[in-house]
């Protein structure tokens, strides 16, 4: 993209690593589509490598509703090989628009957000939805996301790999990588695995790192209780 010399004062897009392993791409409230597009070009020129092929959540803070150019924006991100999979929004109309684009809606976090909003969605709300079943080992560098469903991995999840689901996660082999259940806020989601040696486990945005995990455990269940991740197993 050519830099346009007649542009108004440049804006910057907020970019943070989020709790889960996706990027959070924030478009400032005063940005219109051309401004956001230019800022995107700048961002990609600076750090395209780490952004491309990384799942990202879109946020449009401090707006009364999502901008009408959202579909074009999502399309543009995809052309740039970004992987938007969710949009932060609250209102029913916005959520419907997001769903129409094949994306998940995520609650807008409160300033000191650490715990999910109530209303759990995803699989717990959609009984009968078949799980996504992965038969092969999920290898380092690979990501699997079960949107609106549970995830079943019949093999191991390697160190450096990441599995995510809006619902529950079952790993019948060893969990050595990262597992994030209930990524859209379902606090009822759980993780089960044969052997726990994870780099990170998270339910609905609350996570534990290796040093917080018990020394190697067999047949483990992880769930949220009173805003704490509980790990039970043998």
């Amino acid at each position, binding site marked *: 993209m050519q830099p346009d010399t007649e542009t108004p004062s440049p804006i910057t897009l907020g970019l943070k690593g989020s709790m889960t392993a996706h990027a959070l791409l924030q478009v400032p409230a005063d940005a219109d589509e051309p401004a956001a597009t230019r800022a995107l070009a700048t961002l990609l020129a600076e750090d395209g490598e780490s952004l491309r092929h990384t799942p990202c959540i879109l946020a449009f803070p401090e707006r009364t509703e999502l901008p009408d150019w959202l579909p074009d924006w999502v399309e543009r991100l995809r052309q740039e090989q970004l992987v938007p999979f969710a949009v932060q929004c609250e209102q029913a109309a916005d959520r419907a628009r997001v769903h129409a684009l094949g994306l998940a809606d995520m609650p807008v976090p409160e300033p000191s957000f650490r715990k999910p909003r109530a209303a759990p969605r995803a699989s717990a709300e959609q009984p009968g939805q078949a799980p996504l079943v992965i038969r092969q080992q999920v290898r380092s560098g*690979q990501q699997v996301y079960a949107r609106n469903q549970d995830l079943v991995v019949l093999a191991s999840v390697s160190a450096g790999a990441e599995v995510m689901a809006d619902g529950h996660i079952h790993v019948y082999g060893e969990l050595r990588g990262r597992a994030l259940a209930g990524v859209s806020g379902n606090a009822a989601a759980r993780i089960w695995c044969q052997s726990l040696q994870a780099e990170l486990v998270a339910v609905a945005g609350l996570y534990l790192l290796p040093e917080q995990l018990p020394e190697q455990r067999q047949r483990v269940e992880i769930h949220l209780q009173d805003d704490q991740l509980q790990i039970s197993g043998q």
Partner: protein
Amino acid sequence: MDRFNRFNSGETTLTRIIVVTSGKGGVGKTTTSAALSMGLARAGHKTVVIDFDIGLRNLDIIMDCERRVVFDFVNVIQGDARLNQALIRDKRCELLSILPASQTRDKEALTREGVQAILEELSQDHEYIICDSPAGIEGGAMMAMYFADEAIVVTNPEVSSVRDSDRIIGLLQSKSRRAENNEPPIREHLLVTRYDPERVGRGDMLSIEDVEEILASPLIGVIPESESVLRASNQGIPVILDEDSRAGQAYVDVVARLTGEERPLRFTELERKGILQRMFGG
């Protein structure tokens, strides 16, 4: 015969295209490519080994033919030379040829169509095509693996190498021609190299069991750490020709397993060095 027969008609040929890959650099890919191609040719199979490491050129040195390189892989792709002008026949074994990499061109010179055309042509009269991959997971490495039927994943028994191998196996399963066309997947074989039972015993290295468990891939062999490897490559001799070397013998076993024989693993246990071994090196 139609040059593009092999990949487009779905017809199977007898040629096995085997990529030697690893992700991590310096783990023994080129050593392995040289040894296996020489071993296969000596076992009576017409074999060609291709250096995909454009810009570095190692293979021709290990094969002792660097001074005979006139045209290279890139010359053929760009149409400056015919394939048989670039192929170098090994002096020790006439069933073996080398297609050297270019030292001067950049990696972008390899095109998928060009590589495909060369593999097609080589498939017509070779039983084995061994592709020596560059390190990394970028263009060159992806090009080396793209058309493969099988992969030898070279791994040193240490965490970073194992992690990279895991990554490469994931790419073999998703980014190859076979994966993209929904054909049977690339058959992968795990080869553990630079294995040192003493260091494993001290806990400085992962054991074979650890590596196998993490990678969940079938093991085709274990090559011990051995000084004879460096000595051989300095002399331009694929180590498999050094019959006194344990690494050479282990490569002989790998060749046998590749061609369908069953052989027990050797040199994986800690053993007392006998007086003869001490005198002649291992």
